């Protein structure tokens, strides 16, 4: 609802002897003419001010004695045409002087040409009865400037006329271009002029409760025919043009003003949009002013529709349209943005200067409303996400599909993707195009994945990672391109790792891309599910050394492969990886010199994190694997700075001397060499190490200090003679004295200790021998009276035991007692 028109009760006729019988409004809505039932014409000036609209009487003129039933204001000729007592009076607009038009009698209706043509032509149609069964329609051109006060000059010229076989009087007419709609109480006809042919539009039954009314719509070249509660628009062909207007009660009068139609019904003045037939506004009657049911009202308006007059028997209402600009403000305040846009568009069509402002204001409010709508959608989506988990929920497909639509519209992908990644009931065919259109590629891929279409999902993720699909902007998704790639590769790896979701052929198809894009995810994938090792290795050898090493490690260590080739390849690949990370060295210096410089800090040598990690992995693999070809590895490592690895390889080959040489001579790690001897090489290794230290070769001086350290720590295990033999004649005596002294002292002490022990053992042996001899010399004499000390039975021939104290006891009879006795005897 909006306020399209404002209404005023502008005048109340005071005369008792007459009543209002006709109304007209001048061209610019400044003057109102009232025709009265006693033949008088009254001219009023229409005044308007802050308090409203009112009329002031300007002139009064008696035209006839019968009611004036119609008044026309012919602006083009500055004339007034009055229909009174069947005669047509043409008066001067200013002086109100004039005469009846000759030749016109029994006129029942008159209709002026309206619209644009009316500005140039003062044309009017007059209907009059010509016989009992026919009516005549005459068209006159009202002449401007003619002297209307006498009958000498022609005030109007008849241009055309037609006879209609119609027994009823014409009650109303309306121009549609050059044609005329002619209405009697029961029939509507279309008269084509100047040909004079006419056709029936429709006819009401004779018992029709209400008569026809007609209103011209000049700017649309249409006419509005009122039939009971319906208003039917017809065009110049007599065809209906759109949905009929529907009135609450049969109107007493209808008027057209611009885009609106006004219908005076018993409850209110109702206003409708002419184009849409929509109800726009109701203006109820004031208390005590409502017309009687079925009362015929009088209506008139100026050509522009800026002033509309409605009159009953005594009261006159004026209706004036509210400016579109004001209407826009009203509907904007009411929040009816659709109507505001429609009104602004109407203003823009007329080049109204306020239209742009109205558009901007509407747009602003629309944005505000959109924000509210967005919040509402957000809440609805949250609700749907919540209820879809309830048991027994119906129409889950609809719930899920709506949730997808809302979340897609809201833009944030997180919840949408969470929904699509799970078990949903949406139809891919219905939401797929939506997701594609809104560039929710990741969500679509998740949906494909969840629906068991791994290839389609992986294709999307691959396209995203390789920029073949444009992802959502970071402002919408909250993800940078790098994050999008990480997400795509992670989900791809997770999908490929699931043997139930992706077959091995799918894995092999997308593995190269994953190895190139996300080696870590590829490694995780390869460890997660069993695959054809040979195929995977063949693929990895061409693409990525780190992933190859990871996979070999997994196969050898975790899957416990017993294939020596794989063991060897693992160690070789790890060695390659470690060698690649080793820094360049100055080969002009011998290895031991380089090692010495590093130890002394003369050369800045710090192992990087990657290098350290690579070596740690290599060493761990060397320890964990046992089937690798050490000879082949040694060939690769020979001459490199990977000392520990070389030692381990030599150890695996049983080449302890070589390992010790690396440790003692190449690296100068004497303690490491000693520890190696202790763990692996034994005393022979110690002697070999001593030899190396005393004769390092390659022109190096003997490493006496290191040799002495060795002798000090492990000398006890070595044979002094061999040590002396090893030391040779060139060894400086002062250097060897402390060591030799200690060795000799220890040897002497060991000899003396052995001698003491020998003598002590000999003494013990002699003591035992003496006791044995004594015991062997003892005898027992058994007589008949001799009885067992325990059971007191005669010994006789029974077996008995003789105790050192001379007591005898039978063994067989009372063994436990003997044992107890024996214990007693053994007590000190």
């Amino acid at each position, binding site marked *: 609802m909006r306020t399209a028109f404002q209404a005023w009760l502008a005048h109340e006729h005071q005369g008792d002897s007459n009543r209002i019988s006709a109304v007209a409004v001048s061209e610019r809505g400044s003057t109102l003419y009232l025709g009265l039932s006693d033949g008088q014409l009254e001219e009023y000036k229409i005044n308007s001010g802050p308090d409203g609209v009112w009329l002031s009487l300007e002139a009064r003129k008696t035209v006839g004695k019968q009611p004036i039933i119609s008044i026309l204001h012919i602006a083009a000729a500055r004339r007034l045409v009055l229909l009174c007592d069947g005669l047509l009076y043409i008066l001067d607009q200013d002086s109100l002087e004039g005469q009846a038009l*000759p030749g016109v009698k029994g006129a029942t209706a008159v209709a002026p040409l309206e619209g644009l043509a009316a500005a140039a032509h003062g044309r009017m149609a007059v209907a009059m009865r010509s016989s009992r069964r026919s009516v005549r329609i005459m068209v006159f051109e009202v002449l401007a400037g003619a002297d209307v006060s006498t009958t000498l000059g022609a005030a109007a010229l008849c241009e055309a*006329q037609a006879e209609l076989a119609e027994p009823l009087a014409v009650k109303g007419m309306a121009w549609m271009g050059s044609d005329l709609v002619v209405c009697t109480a029961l029939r509507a006809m279309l008269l084509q002029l100047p040909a*004079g042919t006419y056709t029936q539009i429709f006819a009401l039954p004779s018992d029709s409760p209400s008569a026809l009314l007609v209103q011209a719509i000049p700017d649309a070249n249409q006419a509005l025919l009122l*039939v009971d509660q319906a208003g039917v628009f017809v065009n110049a062909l007599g*065809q*209906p043009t759109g949905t009929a207007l529907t*009135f609450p009660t049969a109107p007493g009068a209808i008027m057209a003003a611009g885009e609106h139609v006004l219908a005076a019904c018993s409850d209110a003045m109702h206003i409708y949009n002419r184009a849409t037939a929509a109800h726009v506004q109701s203006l109820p009657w004031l208390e005590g002013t409502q017309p009687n049911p079925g009362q015929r009202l009088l209506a008139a308006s100026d050509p522009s529709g800026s002033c509309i007059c409605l009159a009953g028997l005594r009261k006159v209402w004026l209706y004036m349209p509210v400016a579109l600009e004001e209407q826009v403000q009203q509907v904007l305040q009411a929040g009816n943005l659709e109507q505001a846009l429609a009104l602004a568009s109407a203003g823009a069509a007329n080049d109204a200067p306020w239209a742009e402002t109205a558009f901007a204001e509407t747009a602003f409010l629309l944005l505000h409303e959109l924000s509210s709508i967005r919040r509402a959608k957000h809440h609805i989506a949250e609700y749907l996400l919540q209820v879809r988990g309830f048991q027994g929920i119906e129409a889950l497909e609809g719930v899920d599909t709506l949730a997808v639509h809302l979340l897609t519209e809201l833009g944030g992908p997180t919840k949408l993707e969470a929904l699509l990644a799970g078990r949903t009931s949406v139809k891919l065919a219905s939401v797929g195009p939506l997701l594609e259109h809104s560039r929710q590629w990741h969500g679509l891929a998740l949906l494909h994945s969840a629906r068991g279409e791994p290839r389609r999902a992986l294709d999307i993720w691959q396209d995203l990672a390789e920029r073949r699909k444009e992802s959502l902007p970071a402002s919408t998704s909250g993800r940078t391109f790098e994050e999008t790639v990480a997400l795509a590769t992670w989900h791809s790896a997770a999908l490929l790792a699931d043997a139930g979701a992706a077959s091995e052929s799918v894995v092999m198809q997308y593995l190269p891309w994953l190895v190139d894009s996300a080696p870590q995810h590829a490694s995780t994938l390869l460890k997660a599910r069993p695959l054809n090792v040979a195929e995977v290795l063949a693929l990895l050898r061409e693409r990525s050394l780190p992933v190859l090493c990871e996979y070999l490690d997994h196969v050898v260590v975790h899957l416990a492969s017993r294939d020596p080739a794989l063991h060897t390849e693992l160690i070789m690949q790890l060695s390659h990886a470690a060698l690649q990370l080793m820094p360049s060295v100055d080969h002009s210096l011998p290895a031991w010199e380089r090692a010495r410089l590093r130890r002394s800090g003369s050369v800045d040598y710090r192992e990087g994190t990657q290098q350290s990690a690579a070596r740690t992995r290599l060493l761990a693999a060397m320890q964990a694997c046992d089937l690798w070809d050490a000879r082949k590895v040694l060939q690769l490592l020979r001459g490199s700075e990977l000392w520990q690895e070389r030692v381990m390889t030599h150890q695996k080959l049983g080449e302890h001397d070589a390992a010790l040489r690396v440790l003692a001579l190449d690296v100068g790690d004497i303690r490491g060499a000693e520890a190696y001897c202790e763990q692996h090489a034994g005393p022979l290794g110690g002697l070999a190490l001593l030899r190396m230290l005393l004769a390092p070769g390659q022109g190096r001086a003997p490493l006496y200090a290191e040799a002495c350290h060795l002798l000090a720590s492990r000398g006890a295990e070595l044979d002094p003679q061999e040590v002396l033999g090893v030391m040779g004649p060139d060894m400086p005596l002062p250097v060897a004295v402390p060591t030799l002294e200690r060795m000799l002292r220890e040897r002497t002490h060991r000899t003396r200790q052995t001698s003491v022990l020998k003598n002590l053992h000999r003494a013990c042996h002699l003591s035992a021998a003496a006791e044995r001899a004594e015991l062997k010399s003892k005898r027992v004499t058994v007589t008949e009276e001799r009885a067992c000390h325990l059971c007191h039975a005669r010994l006789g021939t029974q077996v008995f035991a003789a105790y050192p104290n001379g007591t005898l006891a039978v063994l067989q009879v009372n063994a436990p007692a003997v044992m107890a006795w024996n214990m007693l005897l053994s007590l000190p």
Partner: protein
Amino acid sequence: MLASDTGALQQAKLVLLGDMGAGKSSLVLRFVKGQFFDYQESTIGAAFLTKTMPEQNVKFEIWDTAGQERYHSLAPMYYRGAAAAVIVFDITNTESLGKAKNWVKELQRQGNPNMVMALAGNKADLADARAVTTEEAQTFADDNNLFFWETSAKTNQNVLELFTDIAQKLPRTSAQPQPSNAGITLSEPPQQRPQKSGCC
């Protein structure tokens, strides 16, 4: 009016006629907007709607007329020049079938002779309250060269089928009545007798 068979979308004026409460507006609303309301206000005058059936290459201009007797006299204005008419009756109301028969007679007498006419027995969902048998309606339709559908705007039963059937039966190449000739010519043009105004 139909377009020629050149592939352009054909426009066809279609009018619905029938007794008050037979379900004309509900039928149209279901066909055009896919909606149904348990309470549908009585149509005053007539309502105008359009519906394009791309698969049939037809655009229907539909006039949904008022069923009330007081607006009966407006009907010729709506069925004049129509290419098709749907006469609707209520299968639970025998009187409505009688009204439908009257409409058929009126159309046969005053309507376009090439008009495609269909008889629609609406409210087929109210089978328990059926008062008009299918055979009775079918026999009437056969006798008058109408094609007959039992429809339900409420359950959307046979609604699309009805209009599709009409669209397929429309004469594609026949000349349609010209609106300008559609009215009932009441008289030959009289001799023009220009008469000068003024004294005789």
